[in-house]
């Protein structure tokens, strides 16, 4: 789950990481009222889950109520790389002496947590990694040991931050690691982490990705679930508990298992088609799940044919076939369907489907053949 900046800052604040006082608002009037409470100057910041909002004009300094009104009016509703701005974050502007970068994430290769710290902040860290990799001080942390203050102090020295920033940075890094681990985050990133002329260190931005698998021990994360950015199709699938990713093509894809679904999307491409989606219905493939999947896909106006790719393991082919037949009776589908059914009891399953076959419901014996048929139907 990706958090908006304002959510990330509230998340940081709950771990005592210093952030600027601010408020999230959705109207111009509320923006002005918030600024009046916070005090001037304020920064008006577009809340979108995409980089480059500053360049797009989504971050503006305002010294008065009139300026807040103008900027909030321009930014609310603005389109930034396909994301519409619905919320702005109004925060007290900070004086900046220096800008740093700090983050924690999992290094899947080392199977340890990776901390990155750089005296070159405020720019894309990928760019720093390209041009000046030595400017990023890395630390690998064993999850069993965690990050101690001594480790953090040495790390800050390795990163060559301004000595004035050392104590403040150590304090924030230890807290940021706590937020990362106790908060079950996939990523906690501060860019920029700033040193103020007064010597304080402070998180000026917040990028946080939380692990959706951890919601059982963080019931408050439900609130972030509600603000996830999904297109209409993804939202509908999510509501039905389906693993769905929207793509741009015309062949709807349903498969059981993430790997097989990925593979199905690939094969549609290989034979010259364009998949409309990735959809994994999991192991069960019963009538309810299949009906839900068909509903989501047939509501996508771009879909011109549907490719159902099922491999029966423990779930038997005849059960899957019955599920498909029942589901098709429940959902109105106007585009042709191609089914490839293999694995356990595939013959029994195919026999059950046989009497239902028509131009609208075809069967193929291999993945490649099914993909070719589905693509031909989509482009016909």
């Amino acid at each position, binding site marked *: 789950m990706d958090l908006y900046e304002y959510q990330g800052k509230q998340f940081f604040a709950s771990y005592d990481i210093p952030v600027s006082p601010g408020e999230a608002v959705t109207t111009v009037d509320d923006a002005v009222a918030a600024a009046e409470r916070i005090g001037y100057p304020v920064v008006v910041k577009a809340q979108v889950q995409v980089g480059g909002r500053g360049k797009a004009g989504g971050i503006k300094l305002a010294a008065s109520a009139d300026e807040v009104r103008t900027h909030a009016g321009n930014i609310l509703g603005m389109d930034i790389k396909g994301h519409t701005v619905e919320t702005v974050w109004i925060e007290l502007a900070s004086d900046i002496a220096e800008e740093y970068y700090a983050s924690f994430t999992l290094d899947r290769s080392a199977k340890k947590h990776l901390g990155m710290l750089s005296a070159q902040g405020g720019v894309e860290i990928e760019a720093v990694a390209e041009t000046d990799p030595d400017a990023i001080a890395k630390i690998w942390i064993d999850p069993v040991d965690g990050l101690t203050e001594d480790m953090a102090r040495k790390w800050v020295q390795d990163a060559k931050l301004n000595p004035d920033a050392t104590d403040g940075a150590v304090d924030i890094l230890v807290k940021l690691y706590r937020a990362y681990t106790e908060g079950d985050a996939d990523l906690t990133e501060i860019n920029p982490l700033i040193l103020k002329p007064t010597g304080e260190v402070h998180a000026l931005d917040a990028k946080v990705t939380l692990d959706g*698998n951890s919601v059982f021990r963080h019931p408050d994360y439900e609130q972030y679930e509600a603000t996830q950015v999904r297109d209409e199709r993804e939202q509908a699938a999510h509501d039905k508990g389906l693993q769905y990713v929207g793509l741009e093509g015309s062949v709807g894809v349903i498969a059981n298992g993430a790997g097989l679904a990925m593979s199905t999307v690939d094969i549609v491409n290989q034979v010259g088609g364009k998949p409309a989606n990735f959809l994994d219905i999991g192991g069960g493939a019963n009538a309810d799940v299949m009906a839900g999947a068909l509903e989501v896909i047939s509501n996508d106006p771009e879909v011109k044919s549907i490719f159902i790719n099922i491999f029966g393991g*423990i779930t038997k082919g005849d059960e899957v076939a019955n599920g498909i037949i029942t589901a098709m009776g429940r959902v109105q589908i106007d585009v042709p369907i191609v089914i490839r059914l293999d694995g356990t009891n595939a013959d029994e399953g195919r026999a059950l489907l046989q009497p239902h076959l028509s131009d609208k419901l075809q069967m193929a014996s291999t993945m490649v053949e099914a993909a070719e048929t589905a693509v031909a139907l989509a482009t016909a």
Partner: protein
Amino acid sequence: MAIFVDETTKVVYQGLTGSQGRFYGLLNRDYGTQVVAGTNPKKAGTDVDGIPVYASVGEAVEATGATASCIFIPAPGVKDAVMEAAEGGVTFIVAITEGVPAHDEAWFFNKLKRDFPQVRLLGPNCPGIISPGKANIGITAGHIAKRPVEGRNNVGIVSRSGTLTYQALYELKLNDIGVTTCVGIGGDPVPGTSFIDCLEAFEADPVTDAVMMFGEIGGSAEEEAAAFIAEKMSKPVVSYIAGVTAPAGKKMGHAGAIVSGGKGTAAAKMDALQAAGVRVGRNPTEASQLMVDVVNELAG
């Protein structure tokens, strides 16, 4: 022979009394696996279809001599279940459960490595392991796997994806190729057992003649496997990577299957494998055909 598990492996099922644990535990027993015990602190002293239930893995090991455990505990309990199994004395742990938080996985991976170096963990979020004809631990349908055939060339399988594992087993069976062991390492960010662990074991296994490796987008495990193959493997490897067309930044079902920051793409993985001498198929069927070629070439 086989890798990691065979007919001598005695397995305790953590969560045997739950619906999933019972269903697969009994299926695994029917297959021939030595399912010797289950655990549930509240139901110790009872049994599941004749399989005795103990309060803990430690007690089960003491009473039955179990050497492996299979975890069907819901995600919130997996961290404790893994540690209970290691402390209880088993040396092979199969965690089937999906949805385990990444921080738990990173923690118990490192904890096991440090305090229980003799213990191998497979998973979490994996279909398990099957050595056809010998043992099946997990959720794979046993009958889609062909037993290894003496005097012929047999194949080992390692895969990140469950259904693609089944697809691989099934296609090899259709082509009359026997499988020594099929390991599903799972699609999570911190798998207990890696591709390299399996490749190393297959290389050392005298009855495995070639290896089929199914990977997917995300992380760099396939690239690391490619480096291992180039340096250490004498046996031929055939591969397939799922997710060629996955868009960056979108998780494709598995927690680990994501292309981020331009890393973890299928193309990069396929290139690395090909450079290591691996034959790479564009889809599971093509990979199986490549394996048929390999087996025929080995047979001369």
